[in-house]
């Protein structure tokens, strides 16, 4: 084994994780799972839709770019001087894809043969942009159709409207793909500017999981990461507008072709500004809390379900990013306002003593089961690992932190986070 490789034992999940950092600053993680047929690799940059105002290390001044650039760049990287990258993966029998979310852009493939060749293609195309006036223009038609597709999606619209209700200024309130208008001004210069800044290896991570060899993978990576770049001394600075504690709007409504109202209810979290283990811990504690308050065995769920105010589409989630964070409930409801009223009242009436040991234990079990269940899916491990990595946390610490969590912490979190006045309702209603 190469000397620079660190072996990290994760006993609770019975996995071994291998880690190495190259001179260029690229961090590489390998999680071998030899019994799997598949190999899965994800090469990601810490550059998402919220990163539209930033500094370039070594340069003065602040750069601002149009909404939707990160996603646009993702589309364009697949294009090469001769043909497109999909064809090369296809020839190798692998399937490639990519996604952009608020905080990152990721390129990935899944293979069952030719893994090392595929990895070479992945590293190669992400490091070799080819933007021309013509191919940038052409992409606008495709992305416009992608935006239009989401314009007809009630759940998607409801979610983004909720974010607009929660946030006054933070760019999380804008659509990941931008708007048809904002992308119309994107040109190849803007794309190259963002590319050169954010696609530097020191701002990226490679995560590989599945039926792979550690040494062979690392050797190939070392050979295929451009040698002319070394880790920059300064970090990229990202500028987000100052965000008030309170919400922007209590209620936002939009009309679309849906059968019954679709809603999202958000609760803004003001305890933000940190990453690392503490963030993962906050995520876990908050998830237990939501499970206790709104999970299927909770009194509130029973009441809402039996009154017909929610159905099987009901769900909830906690979103924990370094610079913003919120709880969210969502689903379909014949009367979202009545539902909101009941939940608001429950939040006001609820005391921390109402959070009981027995329910706490069940909620924690549930999270454990869900985590292990997802651990059987390589894609899930990979995308979550990358997401937490950019928040300076290790997704494989989840079980350990979960088991350390105590009811007292959840009660404290309840007092801190469950604030009716910080909640906002979004409704997409039928004509």
């Amino acid at each position, binding site marked *: 084994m190469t000397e620079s490789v660190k072996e990290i034992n994760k006993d609770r*999940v019975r996995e071994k994780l291998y880690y190495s950092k190259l001179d260029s600053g690229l961090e590489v993680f390998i999680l071998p799972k030899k*019994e*799997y*047929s*598949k190999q899965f690799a994800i090469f990601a940059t810490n550059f998402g839709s919220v990163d539209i105002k930033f500094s370039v290390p070594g340069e003065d001044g602040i750069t601002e770019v149009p909404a939707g650039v990160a996603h646009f760049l993702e589309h364009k990287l697949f294009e090469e001087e001769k043909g*497109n990258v*999909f*064809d090369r*993966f*296809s*020839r190798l*029998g692998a*399937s*490639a894809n990519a996604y952009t979310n608020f905080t990152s852009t990721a390129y990935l493939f*899944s*293979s*069952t*043969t030719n893994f090392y060749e595929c990895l070479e293609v992945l590293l190669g195309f992400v490091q070799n942009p080819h933007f021309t006036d013509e191919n940038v223009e052409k992409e*606008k*038609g*495709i*992305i416009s*159709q992608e935006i*239009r*597709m989401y*314009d*007809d*999606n*009630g*759940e998607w619209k409801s979610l983004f409207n909720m974010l607009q209700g929660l946030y006054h200024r933070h760019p999380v309130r804008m659509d990941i793909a931008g708007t048809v208008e904002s992308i119309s001004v994107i040109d190849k210069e803007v794309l190259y500017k963002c590319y050169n800044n954010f696609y530097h290896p020191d701002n990226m991570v490679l995560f590989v999981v599945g039926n792979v060899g550690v040494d062979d993978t690392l050797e190939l990576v070392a050979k295929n990461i451009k040698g002319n770049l070394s880790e920059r001394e300064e970090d990229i600075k990202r500028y987000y507008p100052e965000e008030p504690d309170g919400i922007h709007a209590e209620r936002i409504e939009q009309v*679309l*072709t849906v*059968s*019954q109202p*679709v809603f999202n209810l958000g609760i803004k979290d003001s305890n933000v500004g940190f990453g690392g283990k503490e963030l993962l811990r906050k995520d876990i504690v908050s998830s237990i809390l939501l499970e206790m308050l709104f*999970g*299927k*065995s909770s009194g509130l*769920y*029973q009441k809402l*379900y*039996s009154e*017909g105010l929610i159905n*099987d*589409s009901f769900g909830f989630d906690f979103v924990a990013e370094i610079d913003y964070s919120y709880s969210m409930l969502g689903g*379909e409801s014949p009367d979202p306002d009545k539902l909101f009223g009941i939940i608001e009242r429950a939040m006001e009436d609820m005391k921390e003593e109402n959070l009981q040991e027995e329910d706490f*234990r*069940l*909620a924690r*079990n*549930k999270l*454990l*089961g*869900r985590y*292990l*269940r997802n*651990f*059987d*899916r390589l894609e899930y491990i990979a995308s979550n690992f990358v997401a937490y990595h950019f928040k300076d946390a290790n997704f494989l610490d989840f079980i350990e932190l979960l088991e350390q969590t105590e009811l007292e912490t959840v009660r404290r979190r309840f007092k801190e986070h469950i604030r009716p006045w910080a909640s906002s309702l979004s409704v997409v209603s039928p*004509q």
Partner: protein
Amino acid sequence: MEGIYYQQRMGEGINLYLIREPKFKTVSVSLVMYRPLDENTTGNALLSHILKRGNEDLKDTKAIERFLGERYGASLNVDVLKKGDMQLIYLGSSVISDKYTMKGEGVVSEILDFLTRLVQRPLIEEGGFNRKYFEQERDNLEKLINARINDKIQYSIDRCYEETAKGQPFGRYRYGDSEELGGITPEGLAQYYRNVLAEAPMDIFVVGDVDIDDLKGFLDNPPFIERREIKYLGQILSSPQGNAPREVVELMDVNQGKLTMGYTTGVGYTHGQYVPMLVYASILGGGAHSKLFNNVREKASLAYYSFARLEKFKGLMVIGAGIEIANYGKAVGIINEQLEQMKKGSISDSEMEAAKKAMINNIHSMQDNQLQITDFLMNRIVSGHTMTPEALAEKISDVTREDVVAVADGIKHAVTYFLTDNRKAGEEEGR
């Protein structure tokens, strides 16, 4: 999945299949009952929703959630599936493997027992299903059926199939028809359910790190279900509709038009040309390597998505694309051109290879996903084909261009379905 590790007949027409896969940390358990799509389709959908509310042992959601929570947060999913002319009542759970429990206690056997008892010991009082559950789930089902318009892509695919198989059982929606709900009573449904229990073929699938000894608790003492003569079901292929393709236009307030074209292929699972048909569909529209993706999206920039998909039980195919409404004529033209190319055999070596490799990659990847393994087995049972995944992969690699061209001839256009904008209906161009 090299094969079925263990199979046991548990009663007349009841089989248990165990697929032992040590790589998984969780175990997936599924129980299905097979029904024909007929006048009871809405009732079957309602049944599945009522069964999950409780049984004689665990009388409400709270009790069930507690039971599942104690078993490391095992999940419970209940639904109906549609496979060709059949509707499957499906109950599934995912639970952590006994090897990951705190004290090595056996939870898998308990979950099997739990699912079986949900089916075997329903909450029937005075000859009818519990009235409260019945009424709530009837209302929920009504909303669920109406909610089908929310996902415009899936809706337009379903509608296109329905138009293609108009008047046949397959033309029924998976969850039935909300207008039939009024005719269903707690008593009538309970009476009908007794028949289902007595005569429906039933299968249980267990996929995960499970030894047969782990199931001893369940197998030694299986719940008794009284069986009559079992009603085994078959599939009927859709035949071509002779006359010129029909156009169906549906109006809704939408931003993007959904163009969906339906075809009969004459080739089902057990047909001699089944494997070439799979390759045909993959070349035409099975991903980023396909003609539709490259011509409708990459070259013409008309759509974000464009695909071809088979209904393998019925011998049908749909082509879909989300387009600007004014581009209808252009998109239909490009799609027809691709079908023509297929017929003429103008398929490059690299298209041929890419399609086959993509399919083989999918088959191998399937073995890393418990639900896909279960689905593959169910499809085998429902269709009567007996191929193992390995055999299927081998046959795919043997397919020649001539084989593909030979199936192209049998493909007959039946319906063009277009979901388009109410507001712009008058000003449409290109039609």
